[in-house]
C-alpha cells in the first residue's frame, strides 16, 4: 500500500473494513504529513490530540462492525465551521480567541459518522476572497508550481487551505463552503474535486455566515466517488437551519453508474467570454467531446442573463454580509479594541471593527451598508434581487427543455501567483467567479472536476451544473468526465 495519507476516502474505507489498516495509522500518517507541510500554511489550528482520540474511537467502532463509510477518515475542516472547544475564527482577527461552545451541524454529522478532525484550515477572511490572500493567518500556498518555476501560487479561495491540504495529501478530504465559487474555484486551481450542493441540502447551522441566501457547504475531495461518499454524510434536514430542505438524501455513491447515454448536456454560449484563454476554450471543447463520446447529446443553450450575475452577486452578497457581520461588535465574543479615556459604546464598536476586520471585509461591509441604505435600496438591492430572479429563470427554462446538466469551464484561468493581483482593482479579482457565481444565485448544485493541465503544467477544471436536488445525477456526469479525462497528475513535492 502506498503512503496512507495518499489514499482516497473509498480506498481507506475499504482497507479499514478489511482490517488492512487502522484509523489510528491513517491519522498518524496525515499528522506527519501536516507537520512536514507548514510551508503550505494550509492547517492553521492543528488538533492532533483530538484526532487521535477520534481515531481510537473509530477503530473501536470498526472492530465492533459498526462503521459508516466515513468512520476513521481523517479530514481537514475549514475555519468557517464552528468546532466545539477548537478555535473557529473564519480567518479573521475579530474572532481571535473564539472557541465555540457548540458544534456545527456538518461537523457533528461527520463526527457521528466516525470521521476524524486533523485541524482547521486556512481560508479567506469570512470567506471573502478568491485567492486566500485576505486571511488573518497569511496566505495558504498551492502545492502546484509552474514547470521550472518556484513562484508561489494561490490555491484559490475562499476554501484555499482546504484545496491545498487535499491536493498535497495532508488529509483524505476537507470541508469547504461556497458562496460564489469558493469550493469550485480552489478545487480547479489544485486539481481536486469539489461540489457545491443545492441550496438547502446541507445545514448552515454553526457555519459562520457570509451571505445566508448563497452560502452552502460541501466536500472537497480527491475523486468524484469520494465527493459522493462525503456529501452523503454532510447532507440532510436540520431543524436548526430554517432553510434546510426536509428531503430524503438519496444514495449518492449508488448514482455513479458511469452511464450517461442519451443524457442532454447543455453548452451555454454566454460562457464563451471575450478574451478567454485558448487553453480554457480547448479544455471546454475536449470536455464536450468526452461527454459526447460517452453517449450524451450535446445541445447549444442560452442563459441570457449570465453577464449580469457578477454585478448582481456583488450587490446581494455584501448586503447580506453587512447584516450578518453586524454581530461582531466586541461585546459577546472575539476581539474588543482598547478604548481611550472617555470613549463610549459607539467608539468601542467602530474601533473594534476597524481593528478586527481586514481591508476586503471592511470594503464589502461598507458596500453592503451603502446598497441597503435609505434611497439606494431600490436602485441597487431590489434591482439585484430582480436580476437574480431572471438568472434563476434562465436555468429553469433550459432544464424545462430537457437539459440534464450544463458543462462550463470552472475558472477563467489556471492558478495565478500570490501577490500578482495586489495592484489590480477588486473587480479583476471578482472575475475569478464569473463561471461559478450564477450557480449560487440560482441555488443549483455545481461540481468542479480536474480535466487537464495547462502548458505550464498547472491543473485546469471543468464545471458541471445540475438540476436542483439532483446531486446524484450530477455526480454521475462528473464521474464520467473524471474517467474520460483520466486526470492523475499530482504536484511534485517541494514543501
Amino acid at each position, binding site marked *: 500500500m502506498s503512503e496512507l495519507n495518499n489514499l482516497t476516502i473509498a480506498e481507506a474505507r475499504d482497507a479499514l473494513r478489511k482490517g488492512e489498516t487502522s484509523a489510528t495509522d491513517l491519522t498518524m500518517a496525515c499528522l506527519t504529513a501536516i507537520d512536514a507541510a507548514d510551508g503550505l500554511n494550509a492547517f492553521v489550528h492543528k488538533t492532533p490530540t483530538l484526532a487521535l482520540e477520534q481515531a481510537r474511537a473509530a477503530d473501536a467502532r470498526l472492530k465492533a462492525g459498526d462503521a459508516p463509510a466515513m468512520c476513521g477518515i481523517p479530514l481537514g475542516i475549514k475555519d468557517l465551521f464552528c468546532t466545539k472547544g477548537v478555535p473557529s475564527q473564519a480567518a479573521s482577527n475579530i474572532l481571535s*480567541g473564539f472557541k465555540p461552545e457548540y458544534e456545527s451541524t456538518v461537523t457533528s454529522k461527520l463526527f457521528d459518522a466516525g470521521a476524524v478532525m486533523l485541524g482547521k484550515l486556512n481560508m479567506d477572511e469570512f470567506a471573502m476572497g478568491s485567492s486566500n490572500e485576505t486571511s488573518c493567518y497569511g496566505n495558504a500556498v498551492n502545492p502546484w508550481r509552474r514547470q521550472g518555476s518556484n513562484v508561489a501560487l494561490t490555491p484559490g479561495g475562499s476554501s484555499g487551505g482546504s484545496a491545498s491540504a487535499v491536493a498535497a495529501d495532508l488529509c483524505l478530504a476537507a470541508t469547504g463552503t461556497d458562496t460564489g465559487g469558493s469550493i469550485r474555484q480552489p478545487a480547479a486551481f489544485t486539481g481536486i474535486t469539489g461540489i457545491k450542493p443545492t441550496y438547502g441540502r446541507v445545514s448552515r447551522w454553526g457555519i459562520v455566515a457570509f451571505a445566508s441566501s448563497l452560502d452552502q457547504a460541501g466536500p472537497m475531495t480527491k475523486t468524484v466517488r469520494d465527493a459522493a461518499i462525503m456529501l452523503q454524510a454532510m447532507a440532510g434536514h436540520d431543524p436548526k437551519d430554517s432553510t434546510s430542505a426536509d428531503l430524503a438524501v438519496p444514495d449518492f455513491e449508488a448514482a455513479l453508474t458511469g452511464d450517461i447515454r442519451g443524457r442532454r448536456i447543455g453548452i451555454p454560449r454566454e460562457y464563451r467570454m471575450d478574451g478567454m484563454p485558448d487553453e480554457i476554450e480547448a479544455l471546454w471543447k475536449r470536455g464536450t467531446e468526452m461527454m459526447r463520446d460517452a453517449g450524451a447529446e450535446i445541445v447549444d443553450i442560452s442563459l441570457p442573463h449570465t453577464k449580469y450575475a457578477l454585478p448582481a452577486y456583488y450587490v446581494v452578497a455584501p448586503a447580506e454580509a453587512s447584516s450578518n457581520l453586524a454581530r461582531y461588535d466586541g461585546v459577546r465574543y472575539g476581539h474588543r479594541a482598547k478604548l481611550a479615556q472617555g470613549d463610549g459604546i459607539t467608539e468601542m464598536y467602530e474601533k473594534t*471593527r476597524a481593528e478586527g476586520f481586514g481591508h476586503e471585509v471592511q470594503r464589502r461591509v461598507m458596500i453592503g451598508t451603502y446598497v441597503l441604505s435609505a434611497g439606494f435600496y431600490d436602485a441597487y438591492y431590489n434591482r439585484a434581487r430582480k436580476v437574480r430572479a431572471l438568472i434563476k429563470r434562465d436555468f429553469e427554462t433550459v432544464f424545462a427543455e430537457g437539459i440534464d446538466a450544463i458543462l462550463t469551464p470552472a475558472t477563467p484561468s489556471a492558478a495565478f501567483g500570490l501577490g500578482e493581483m495586489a495592484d489590480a482593482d477588486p473587480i479583476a479579482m471578482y472575475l475569478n467567479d464569473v463561471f461559478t457565481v450564477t450557480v449560487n444565485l440560482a441555488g443549483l448544485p455545481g461540481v468542479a472536476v480536474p480535466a487537464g493541465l495547462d502548458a505550464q503544467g498547472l491543473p485546469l477544471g471543468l464545471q458541471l451544473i445540475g438540476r436542483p436536488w439532483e446531486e446524484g445525477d450530477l455526480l454521475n456526469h462528473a464521474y464520467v468526465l473524471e474517467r474520460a479525462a483520466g486526470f492523475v497528475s499530482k504536484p511534485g513535492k517541494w514543501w
Partner: protein
Amino acid sequence: MSIDKDTARKVAHLARIAVKDEDLPALAGELSAVLAFMEQLNEVDVEGVEPMTSVTPMRLKRRVDQVTDGGIQAQVLKNAPDAREGFFAVPKVVE
C-alpha cells in the same frame, strides 16, 4: 453613482467602522469603482419581475412555541471580552 468623501464618511459610520480622515478619499474611490461595476444592472429590463426572496420555493417551517433550552449562562458568557457578575460588560451607554 460616484461616492464622495462625505458619503464615504457617512457609510463608514453607518457600518460602525472607524476610518481615518486621510483614508476617506481612497475609500471613496474604491467604493465608487465597485458601484460603477454594479451600474451594468441598469441595462436589464426588470419590469414586472418580483425580487427574489427565497432561492428555493419553500415555506418556512414553524416550530412549537416552547422553551427548548436555557440555563447556560456560563457558556453564553464564556467567549465575552468582558463579562462581570453574569452580564456582558460595555462602556457606559446612558448618562
